[in-house]
């Protein structure tokens, strides 16, 4: 019920402060998430333990004040909230390895692309609190977009805890598992589409005579500003677009070029392609 959820949210807020967080796998995504949590001040570095087979990735974690190890089991033994962040083909083996150390107090959150809740639950002890999270790289600057889905063993408390913790890194929403691949196509990969667009904007400016460094910074700020207006006003982007277009002015001339190039359809194609690929990869 509603009161139950409120209680869970309060518990979630309390627990975050005493939380011991572990990362199995210390690659780019895990690092981004951890750095986001640290910058947000949600979890002290000393409460974070990360494991990886080599030191290659772990140096950066140590520099931030986190603890590191080469032993995955240690992460399970030391942490309550455990993020799984290995490459997809490695995960099944890792799950076999850590399974003996997984207990009812653990909250296991998988960041691994393409591995379903069903698979995770099959490879972990019955009733384990499992959730699946799809973040994106801007978590590292507290401007991430994240969605998560809960497995059968995870309840309101775990969902609230995760949402509370991760909201410090950006937008964090619970979704049905079927949306996770779509989120990949939209926002996981979407970040790359934005970089491509920013690069093209800057190039246009360079062509018209602006130095590239300046053009790049302005392009980024333009995207940031537009996104901020959209998020803060909640207005439909079509309406916001119209607001910028004075009759016969520069903007409408430019937009006509974009429409001629079927930009909208191309972007839809991109999101569709990435989503489909995520689905295909999951089945492999």
């Amino acid at each position, binding site marked *: 019920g509603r009161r139950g959820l409120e209680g869970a949210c309060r518990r979630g807020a309390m627990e975050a402060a005493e939380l011991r967080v572990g990362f199995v796998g210390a690659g780019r995504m895990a690092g981004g998430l951890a750095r986001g949590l640290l910058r947000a001040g949600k979890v002290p570095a000393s409460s974070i333990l990360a494991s990886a087979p080599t030191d290659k990735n772990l140096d950066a974690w140590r520099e931030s004040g986190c603890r590191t190890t080469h032993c995955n089991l240690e992460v399970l033994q030391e942490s309550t909230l455990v993020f799984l962040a290995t490459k997809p083909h490695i995960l099944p083996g890792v799950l076999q390895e850590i399974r003996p150390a997984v207990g009812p107090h653990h909250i296991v959150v998988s960041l691994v692309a393409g591995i379903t809740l069903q698979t995770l639950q099959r490879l972990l002890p019955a009733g384990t609190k499992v959730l699946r999270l799809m973040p994106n790289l801007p978590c590292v600057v507290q401007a991430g977009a994240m969605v998560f889905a809960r497995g059968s063993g995870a309840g309101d408390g775990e969902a609230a805890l995760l949402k509370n913790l991760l909201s410090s890194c950006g937008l964090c929403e619970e979704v049905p598992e079927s949306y996770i691949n779509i989120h990949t196509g939209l926002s996981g990969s979407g970040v790359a589409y934005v970089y491509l667009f920013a690069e093209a904007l800057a190039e246009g400016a360079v062509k018209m005579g602006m130095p590239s460094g300046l053009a790049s910074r302005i392009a980024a700020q333009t995207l940031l500003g537009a996104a901020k207006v959209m998020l803060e006003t909640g207005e*439909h*982007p*079509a*309406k916001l677009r*119209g607001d910028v277009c004075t009759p016969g002015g520069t903007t409408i001339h430019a937009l*006509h070029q974009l*429409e*001629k*190039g*079927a930009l*909208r*359809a191309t972007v*839809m*194609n991109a999101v569709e392609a990435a989503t489909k690929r995520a689905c295909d990869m999951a089945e492999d």
Partner: protein
Amino acid sequence: GVLAAHKITASSPDTDLPTVSGLRKMGVNFTVSNKDTVKSSDVLFLAVKPPIIPFILEEVGPDIEPRHIVVSCAAGVTISSIEKKLSTFCPTPKVIRCMTNTPVVVREGATVYATGTHADVEDGKLLEQLMASVGFCTEVEEDLIDAVTGLSGSGPAYAFTALDALADGGVKMGLPRRLAVRLGAQALLGAAKMLLESEQHPGQLKDNVCSPGGATIHALHFLESGGFRSLLINAVEASCIRTRELQHLADQEKISPAAIKKTLLDKVKLESPSLSVASASKVSLFTSKSPSSKKN
């Protein structure tokens, strides 16, 4: 019902036109004399083809009095050109330029007007009142009239084309043609009505129709892939630019007046351009039956 038929007078050199009998049946007074209609009217609609306007103005100029409001619906004919022509007869002619579209015939027209130097606010309001009875009517600056032509002047043609194609789509998927046409037209009518009655942006209204992963969003993706939006932008732009071109050509008066007069008089008899000058005590009958008077 804004005007009684007997208060409307229409004139045309050619009494064999199908539109003439139609008007007569409605109870409109008909005459072959433009001068007569001018004398018995207050508001004069000039509904002739653009190249004929100068000749009509020459013909009726002497009979124009201070009370007359001359309304030109001729595409590309500027207020200043009409005022210049009339100024030889009348020091302060009241001229209003208007651009409308064919759906006035079902009272869903889109009309704009621009007032000339000597037309008062009340004169504009009178026209607005008349045209509002057959659809939407608003005042604009004259320099926007070309853009209006591109959008709502030509607009019904874009819609007819779209409807024809939508019906084809329906037929392809198994619907009988008549039903397909009926449903397509109703869909566009309904959508337009929703938009006009809503505060929401069309983009939002579109979203409201598209359930996630559903049929509509799949279809829209096809439209976007085909550059649907840019095609429509191109169309409005092309129509507007062409209107300006034609106006420019007319201004330059490249053709000799005598040649025009003869050619057009012959053409008038062969084609069906409806009325030349139509006027009435309060209003003139609008040439709703004949789209050719608006052809560029």
